[in-house]
């Protein structure tokens, strides 16, 4: 159990396919909402923190393959 508003199991999606779909899911959420992402690709462990730094979303926790990300305001 956690505080996630949205749960998405991305299975083994990777790199650009994962990030572009994640962007779409984040855009469909309201500011402040949290997504619980399950991403089994081994590259996600490095990509998710970098992606959050790039986009301004907040990585609340990273316990591969589970990542909790809060959508930025605005």
């Amino acid at each position, binding site marked *: 159990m956690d505080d996630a508003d949205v749960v998405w199991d991305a299975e083994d999606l990777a*790199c*650009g*396919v*994962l*990030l*572009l*779909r*994640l*962007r*779409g899911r984040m855009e469909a959420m309201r500011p402040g909402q949290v997504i619980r992402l399950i991403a089994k690709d081994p590259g996600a462990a490095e990509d998710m923190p970098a*992606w959050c*730094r*790039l*986009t*301004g979303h907040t990585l609340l926790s990273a316990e591969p393959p589970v990542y909790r990300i809060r959508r930025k305001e605005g």
Partner: protein
Amino acid sequence: MAGKFCVNLTHSKDDSDRATVGFVLANAALGSGKETLVFLSIEGVRLANKGFAESIHEEGFPPLRELMDNFAKGGGTIYVCSPCFKKRKLDENNLVAGASIVGGAKLVEFLSDGSPCVTF
């Protein structure tokens, strides 16, 4: 974080691995909030014609057509090198979504603020 990112893609069926990974990376940039340009040049210009990418499906990746469609739907831009396109006698009236034929000045303008560009 704003910013721009360019992928210069020089291959199509002659090296489907490079063509595919180029669009995967472009989608990563787009998904990361970058204003993203794919510059199709040399053999890469063949991808600008509708239907050409249909048969390209590199093992371990989504079909190239799907990657290109998602790039266009996500707001990505595709520039097509005009002399490369003309040299190959391709059809300028049959371009894929998001693509436009340009000269070198458009690429130089896009990169002129120091934006990064990687080549596949």
